[in-house]
């Protein structure tokens, strides 16, 4: 059996089911899945693979790895289906499983690699605690610019430029929309550490976007 674990807990069976409870359609599908109905499996796989593949691509940034992660996540879910209690939606449960599989792959990929810091991307202040430089408000310009595909790609590149642990925390919190406690559990850190990591990632991303949008404003 594949050992798919969260820090300190097995995935699939004991995974926290804290989201919205499963619908009656979910429960009917779950009953069929537990009966090993092949049509139910196919329906689940066809319905969920695209979304899960997008999640894995966001986290892993490699299509082959993303496909492997989705396959591994489904296999883990299949094997744990009898322990899924139906307290959350099946889609939510699968989402958490694929996120966890991706995080384990990232840990394995980055093991031993030194991570660069992001101090240079954090805001700077004068000795009296005021901003060291004047701040430009480009928020409305950004809102309009994000209608452009090119700008959305620029933002994705900026997120990819963050150090891996910050990039991952930001994606989990702001893109996958996990709450702070879930991010902490997924990353095996305290909720306060998760909150700080996400905040610093946002500050660093803000600095990177500031360089782009402020430049566009003054040109």
């Amino acid at each position, binding site marked *: 059996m594949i050992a798919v674990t969260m820090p300190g807990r097995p995935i699939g069976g004991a995974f926290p089911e804290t989201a919205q409870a499963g619908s009656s359609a979910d429960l009917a599908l779950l009953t069929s899945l537990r009966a090993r109905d092949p049509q139910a499996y196919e329906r689940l*796989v066809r319905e969920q693979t695209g979304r899960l593949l997008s999640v894995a691509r966001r986290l892993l940034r490699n299509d082959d790895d993303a496909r492997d992660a989705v396959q591994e996540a489904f296999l883990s879910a299949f094997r744990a289906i009898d322990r899924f209690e139906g307290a959350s939606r099946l889609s939510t449960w699968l989402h958490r499983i694929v996120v966890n599989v991706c995080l384990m792959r990232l840990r394995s990929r980055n093991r031993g690699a030194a991570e660069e810091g992001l101090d240079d991307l954090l805001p700077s202040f004068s000795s009296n605690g005021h901003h060291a430089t004047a701040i430009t408000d480009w928020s409305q310009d*950004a809102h309009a610019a994000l209608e452009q595909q090119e700008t959305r790609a620029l933002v994705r590149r900026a997120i990819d430029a963050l150090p891996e642990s910050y990039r991952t925390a930001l994606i989990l919190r702001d893109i996958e929309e996990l709450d702070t406690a879930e991010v902490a559990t997924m990353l095996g850190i305290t909720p306060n550490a998760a909150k700080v990591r996400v905040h610093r990632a946002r500050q660093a991303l803000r600095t990177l976007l500031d360089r782009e949008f402020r430049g566009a404003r003054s040109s």
Partner: protein
Amino acid sequence: MTCREVADFVGDYVSGDLPDATRRRFDWHLVTCRNCRRYLATYRATIAAGRTAFARPDADADGMVPEELIRAILAAQPPSPGA
């Protein structure tokens, strides 16, 4: 409250997690500091930009679900009851 403290607290501020007394000091600082109002606006815009950047189909350049992946997943038979 200083601008440095505002920058430290801004994440909790946007998520509504600041204690009331701290939030009142934060709000008062915003009234008096244009730089921090702008910092808050761009911090919020940064969160929104991340969400928008991944929310559109172009975020997933290989958006099509490969049929061979679906077949590979289906081929990995789940264990039978009691297996």
